[in-house]
């Protein structure tokens, strides 16, 4: 603690204006810097992938402004106390809105994921990506760790409700991400290793048995359910074109805006879900490894910040935000390179689109708030 004071006073003298601004906004310097770098890369790639569409770049910049504002506001003005109070409210509101969406979607006889607020469209399922880990962390905050069996059941129910509601939309990809964010909290909280080890063969067996017990047409239905946008042939086409794009990029890539797969529309969804393939085609293996390195830094730094959390809520929330970000990266990069089934998940901070970007940067805002509002007292 004395050391802390000492280092703080020593550094204060040599602070630059930028660092002082970061301090004042309660932002973490290294994390903020790398996130900004990823956002810049994202804008450049969207410009190329959209076929040099300036309008799309403008809108993406608008999305970034909104998302960065969310990050800064949360980092600067929210405190761990507010966040703990806010967590159950956000969860309850999110569940309510999901029910509304499901009902209107059912009435409208079509898949519906968003609410039209007039000035913007809003996906309640996005709230849940943050609200579910927060409610779990909130629940465990006052309770001793590792969680008891009862605690695990309660958390499982808290996770299952929004997950089921999102599955009903139907949006399996997002549902899986929501469930994953909750499970991460359970794992970090100290889910007994015995249960983890036991669940692996049980799940595998259940999946295998279930797959072989159902009829062929049911399997077909499950596959269609997994990927409602396109049939298997369509999905196959997407993944083949994506792998051609990546593979033909080679080590150094075809050059910025010179990827034939993306420029000539062979690559589907090149600005959104398959933007990682555009990077692979135009910047090659080196470009993709650079981006993965930046992502790895963000995850590592986030985990490091979470480790410094002073209470259960801060640690669990921070850890969940860090690892959820990893899950997004892994599912998207794995999908476009063909090692994970096609799930409609954008590449975080790079893909065109506002909703997921706001959620992700808001998460990092919470993470930074939890870290920067530590009381400088040791335990």
């Amino acid at each position, binding site marked *: 603690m004395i050391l802390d004071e000492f280092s703080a006073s020593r550094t204060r003298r040599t602070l630059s204006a930028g660092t002082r601004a970061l301090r004042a906004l309660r932002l973490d310097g290294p994390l903020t810097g790398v996130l900004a770098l990823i956002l810049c890369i994202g804008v450049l790639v969207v410009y190329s992938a959209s076929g040099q569409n300036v309008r799309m770049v403008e809108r993406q910049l608008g999305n970034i402004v909104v998302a960065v504002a969310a990050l800064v506001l949360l980092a600067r003005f929210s405190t761990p106390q507010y966040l703990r109070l806010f967590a159950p409210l956000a969860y309850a509101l999110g569940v309510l809105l999901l029910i509304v969406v499901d009902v209107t979607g059912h009435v409208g006889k079509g898949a519906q994921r968003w609410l039209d607020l007039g000035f913007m469209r809003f996906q309640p399922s996005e709230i849940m990506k943050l609200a579910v880990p927060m409610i779990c962390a909130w629940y465990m905050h006052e309770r001793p760790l590792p969680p008891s069996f009862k605690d695990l059941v309660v958390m499982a129910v808290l996770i299952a409700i929004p997950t089921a509601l999102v599955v009903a939309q139907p949006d399996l990809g997002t549902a899986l991400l929501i469930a994953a964010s909750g499970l991460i909290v359970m794992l*970090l909280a100290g889910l007994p290793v015995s249960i983890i080890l036991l669940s692996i063969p049980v799940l595998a067996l259940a999946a295998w048995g279930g797959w072989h017990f159902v009829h062929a047409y049911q399997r077909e239905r499950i596959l269609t359910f997994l990927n409602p946008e396109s049939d298997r042939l369509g999905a196959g086409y997407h993944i083949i074109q994506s792998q051609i794009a990546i593979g033909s990029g080679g*080590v150094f890539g075809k050059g910025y805006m010179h990827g034939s797969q993306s420029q000539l529309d062979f690559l589907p969804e090149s600005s959104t879900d398959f933007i990682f393939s555009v990077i692979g085609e135009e910047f090659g293996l080196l470009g993709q490894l650079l981006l*993965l390195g930046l992502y790895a830094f963000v995850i590592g730094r986030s985990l490091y910040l979470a480790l410094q959390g002073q209470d259960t809520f801060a640690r669990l929330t921070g850890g969940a935000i860090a690892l959820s970000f990893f899950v997004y990266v892994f599912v998207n990069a794995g999908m476009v390179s063909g090692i994970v089934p096609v799930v409609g998940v954008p590449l975080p901070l790079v893909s065109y689109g506002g909703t997921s970007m706001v959620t992700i940067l808001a998460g990092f805002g919470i993470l930074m708030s939890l870290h920067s509002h530590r009381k400088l007292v040791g335990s």
Partner: protein
Amino acid sequence: MIRRVRIKDHWGERRVFTIRSIVAGVLVAVLLLTIAARLFYLQVVRYAYYSELSQGNRVRVEPIPPARGLILDRHGVILADNMPAYQLEVERDQVGSLKQLRASLARLAQLGLLDPGDLPRIEQTILSHRPYESVPIKLALTDQEMAVFALHRFEFNGIDVHTRLSRNYPFGPLTAQAIGYVGAIGPRDLAHIDPALYAGTTLIGKLGIERTYESTLHGKPGFREVLVNAAGRPVTREGPYRPKLRTTLPVAGTTLVLSLDMRVQRAAQEALQGLRGAVVAIDPRNGDVIALASSPSFDPNEFARGLTFKEYRALLADPDKPMLNRALQGAYPPGSTAKPYYALAALHYGVMAPDDHIFCPGYFHLPGSSHLYHCWKHGGHGEISMRRAIAQSCDVYFYNVANRLGIDRMHHFLSEFGFGKPTGIDIPGEMSGLMPSPEWKRHAFKNPADQVWFPGETLIVGIGQGYMLATPLQLAHAVATIAARGHSFVPRLVIGIRPPGAKRMIRLPPIPGPTVRGVTPAQWEVVDEGMEDATKPGGTAWRVGLNAPYQMAAKTGTAQVFSLRKNERYNEKTINADLRDNALFISFAPADDPKLAVAVMVENATGEGGQVAAPIARKVFDAYLLPPTSASPGAASPTTAPATTAPATTAPPTAAPPTAAPPAATGRRPARPLARTNPVRRGHPTDHGVTETP
């Protein structure tokens, strides 16, 4: 009961979280490395594979059709060339749904741009192509049709006019029979062509020179790389991504130089105007076909433009059969034009000496038979020598010749002149005619009673009637062989080629045919003189020789095309037009140094060979042997082509659907010759044009 109360152990909780975080961090690192390994596999290990797939994705190779080789006459006059034509084309995916496509086609028909009867075929053709391909639906638009379309263009999506190279025949019907024509490539053509060579080509040779020399004329297509997007549509890029695309230029087809002399060809075709008949003129010194005419003719440009199915049917159904090339597809009894060959045979086999006289009382009968064979001259010719028998075409003289020769020697000797077998001319569809023999008769008839050769049949064949049939081309070839004193050449139309890039024409050497041996010069001389006498006063063709600045040698012929009943005499005025006699004429000139041999055949003529056919030959000789006068410029003004019976309807043609492809392309004959070509169906020989006395 003891209740365990768990107390928060901050230190322990932090420891658990730290351990879990570290494990998670390691797991994150492993999974990220898995992705990196996967990327390494795709981008380094399988780079070549994916690179090639990407290349194949973005570049489509489009063919550039070659320009078809030109066809010239022997003096370089263009007989067939390529002209830009406005072509109406459809891009299906631009039109929209099938319903919209049908509506658009119906609207085009309503505007008179398409024939309503062709719509189903056009639709089928469009649907058999890929949706982004431009499919021609109307091959050549007239200025008026262009104007109509331009006025209504706004109504059509995906239908537009493109400029393409089309075939053009400046002389139209004048040269149609020799050159043939090109038409839309049909399914049957596709069976025997290399699709790679014909990529981008819409027309193919269907008949005549265009068909025989298809591979020479066609050339080699070039290729152009075209950038395409995922939908397969060619795209032009304005942005930074503009890859280099390669182009291979096409190689034009080889130019053909024909033996035809357009001045002579025009004279021949125009002389036949209004008649059904054929003229073949051959240079006896090398087999060059100087003129090859058949009337009525058709306009080959109509085929390159694309006939509607209705128009094509009308052309085939025309009773005058314009699609029949009478010069080589019509087989006719040669009649008296066969006599010079029998005279030579008689001299060769020694059954007659040149000065032997035969008494012609006007009829002939076989020993031991009361059956009378009449001479065309009622009172008879009296004492007659061979030379005069040829000049005056005495039948009785040649009954005697035939009787002395016998059918086997007649068959053998006339076969040497090419009778009964194709001449081998370099255009397709030639008939072989028929030189009958007892051997042939045994195989031709089913009924054993019909398989027997009667002595009377020998006499009939001896005056070129009966079963004997020859094409005008064979007649010309045979008389050219007489002109060349037994030396023959395979008739040919192509005498030179000029490959693309070559500065000079490559002349092709004449192709020697079989030589008639064992005839002495004196014997040739006798027949020559007889044929010369025919064009002099007293000869059967004396009128044609009047005022001719060169000496002709000729033989007339009048051949019956039907059998008279017993005791019936031929009366031209009381007989149906299509049963009238055919008029024939064979000749060469100048007699002392033959430069041209001409055969003329006119179906159902109102007059004899000397009256109808001979003047036609005279016009041909004049055109070839006399210097051109200002009044008859050789190949000038193709626009004055004579009227043709081709397309009865002048309605705008459309892309000929595959089914409308002329059957000539299939190897079948377009129609049966008007003359009887099926010897099996002919009547009994004793009935042939000869009255019988009991």
